[in-house]
């Protein structure tokens, strides 16, 4: 077992970002091999689609969210970072949950119960730790993280209750998808305030500072939440089409904050900008698919957001927080925009299967894996290595 003195435990993001990128790569590589028939499809509780969706949401994406929150909240609120031994326990729960879910079809409901306990224990542990810094003083400004994670906890309870009760658990995962979009908006609104303004200052163009305006953000969160709730209660209803279009318009409305001239073309601005574009496009297509059946279905459109928007935002957050809080400068190498472009291509390919056939699904899986392979190749020395200043903790370099 890796000792507590290993650099991996210096800061919570290290192990969780490593878990995110590794699971992103492994889960989609396995999915591609299952789809092509190179590997026989093993049994999973609830079926293969449930395993695929749950592990990507609650395995891969949640790991990046936990890594980011445990690192960023002490910075936002000024509290002491979470102790390494707690991080190790949380990561242990994450790993056990992934293993138990993978074996759920072979072992039976005991493995599913174990996965449920570990997944819920992980979320409860993070929520318990977050409660104190976020409910006091300046931390209250960031309570949205707590509320979103609490909602994820409730949805995860519902998911496992459905799964163990033998009913369809997929609606709970769609709800998780909507919550993930909301989490992106909450996180990006905070990160972008610093990122974009840093770029403006660097360009000597800081006369009109960038502000992520709360009313716009609240409208986007409201519409995304309504769409998620309606999708859960009234699947397939045309009402969803209107709510999806409302969500798309509200996300496009967020981009009003981002039109800041030539600084938009800098990678630290353009990549998060594209996150919102992809999200808005995905919701537009979801909305239109309700009224025009000839268009690819809402699942294909939703994947445009899952791969493009969530994938890209994970890449940005992990590339920025994962370096700054390890004492390094921002990564200016070309692999990052290339990985972003590959994720966009993967999102496009995943949207196309209704026209291009199953090859598009395989292409999307391959491109997704390539992007995360590039990330791991360039980020692994940072995640596993000591800080360049040989200090401990999560402080930024310099």
């Amino acid at each position, binding site marked *: 077992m890796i000792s507590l003195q290993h650099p991996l435990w210096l800061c919570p993001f290290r192990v969780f970002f490593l878990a995110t990128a590794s699971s992103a790569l492994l889960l989609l590589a396995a999915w591609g091999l299952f789809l092509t028939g190179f590997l026989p499809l093993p049994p999973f509780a609830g079926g293969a689609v449930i395993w695929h969706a749950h592990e990507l949401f609650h395995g891969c994406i949640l790991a990046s969210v936990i890594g980011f929150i445990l690192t960023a909240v002490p910075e936002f609120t000024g509290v002491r970072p979470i102790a390494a031994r707690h991080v190790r326990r949380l990561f242990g729960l994450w790993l056990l949950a992934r293993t138990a879910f993978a074996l759920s079809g072979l072992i039976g409901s005991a493995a599913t119960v174990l996965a449920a306990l570990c997944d819920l224990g992980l979320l409860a542990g993070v929520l318990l730790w977050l409660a104190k810094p976020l409910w006091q003083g300046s931390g209250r400004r960031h309570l949205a993280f707590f509320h979103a994670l609490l909602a994820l906890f409730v949805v995860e309870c519902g998911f496992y209750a459905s799964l163990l009760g033998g009913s369809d658990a997929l609606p709970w995962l769609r709800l998780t998808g909507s919550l993930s979009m909301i989490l992106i908006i909450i996180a990006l609104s905070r990160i972008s305030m610093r990122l974009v303004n840093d770029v403006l200052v660097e360009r000597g163009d800081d006369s009109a500072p960038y502000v992520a305006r709360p009313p*716009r953000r609240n*409208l986007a969160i409201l*519409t995304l939440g*309504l769409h998620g709730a*309606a999708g859960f209660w009234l699947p397939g*209803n*045309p*009402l969803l089409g*209107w*709510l999806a*279009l*409302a*969500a798309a*318009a*509200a996300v*496009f*409305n967020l*981009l*009003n904050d981002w*039109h800041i001239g030539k600084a938009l073309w800098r990678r630290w601005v353009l990549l998060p900008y594209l996150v919102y574009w992809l999200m808005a496009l995905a919701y537009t297509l979801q*909305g239109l698919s309700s*009224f025009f059946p000839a268009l690819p279905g809402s699942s294909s459109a939703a994947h445009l957001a899952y791969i493009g928007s969530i994938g890209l935002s994970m890449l940005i957050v992990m590339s920025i927080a994962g370096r700054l809080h390890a004492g390094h400068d921002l990564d200016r190498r070309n692999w990052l925009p290339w990985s972003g472009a590959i994720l966009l291509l993967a999102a496009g390919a995943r949207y196309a299967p209704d026209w291009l056939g199953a090859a598009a699904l395989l292409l999307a899986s391959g491109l997704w894996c390539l992007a995360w392979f590039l990330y791991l190749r360039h980020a692994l020395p940072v995640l596993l290595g000591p800080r360049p200043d040989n200090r401990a903790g999560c402080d930024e370099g310099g």
Partner: protein
Amino acid sequence: MNAPPGLPGRLLAASGSVLAYLWSGWGSLASLFLFMAAWHALAMVLGSLILPTPVESLQTLSRLLHDPLAWEDIAITARRALTGFLLSLGVGSAAGMIAGISLTASMMSRPIVTLLVGMPPIAWLVLALLWFGAGDGTPVFTVFVATFPVIFVGAMQGTRTLDGQLRELSRMLGLSFAMKLSDIYLPHVLSYLFPAWITALGTAWKVVVMAELLSTQDGIGAALAISRSHLDTPSSMAWILALVGSLLGVEYLLLEPLKRRLESWRQWDESRP
């Protein structure tokens, strides 16, 4: 010193601000889609016979718009509403400014304005039917008289609240009348007039349909009366959509950009520390 931008630069800046204005409409669009969702939810509860869904109404509207007669009805309604509105805009703005300049006129006009505001448009419509019969005159007059007090009060308030110190300063600086008008008087008065004009335009659109419904054989109001007599709810909703759509178009594509341009000084003023 920076050289002034050439024509391509100015064109680029102008197209940039047009794009920025259009992009700022996404927030309104989100609210409209939420409204559509609420409408759909209500239609699900009440049933299509009582309240057709937005999609059914839009499909009916699309079918209606394939008929050239429908476009004729829309044009007739727009002509009547705009004629009444423009008359009101001219007379109401001028009379309101005159009343604002003179304290005596302002005092005299107050009870008359109260009377005009309090008089329901339907009462004017009855009088107009007696005076003008079933032609264009009735809806145009009703629109005029219903929108006049709104514009009159806006113009009067704008003129009354002119900053006396600014007026004094302009006199001391010896500004020409044209400069006083364009740089001091008009920007201030317009900041009161524009909201009044927009409110009046909305009122005009509503009143003209009511007047047509009760007094004419053509226009959107008459079409609504026919669809009501046939118990054709989807057609009624389609006509209402056409009406509201044209109102939103005029307000957001014509009046709002104009208002922003004329009020750019206010934004600059508010942005100062």
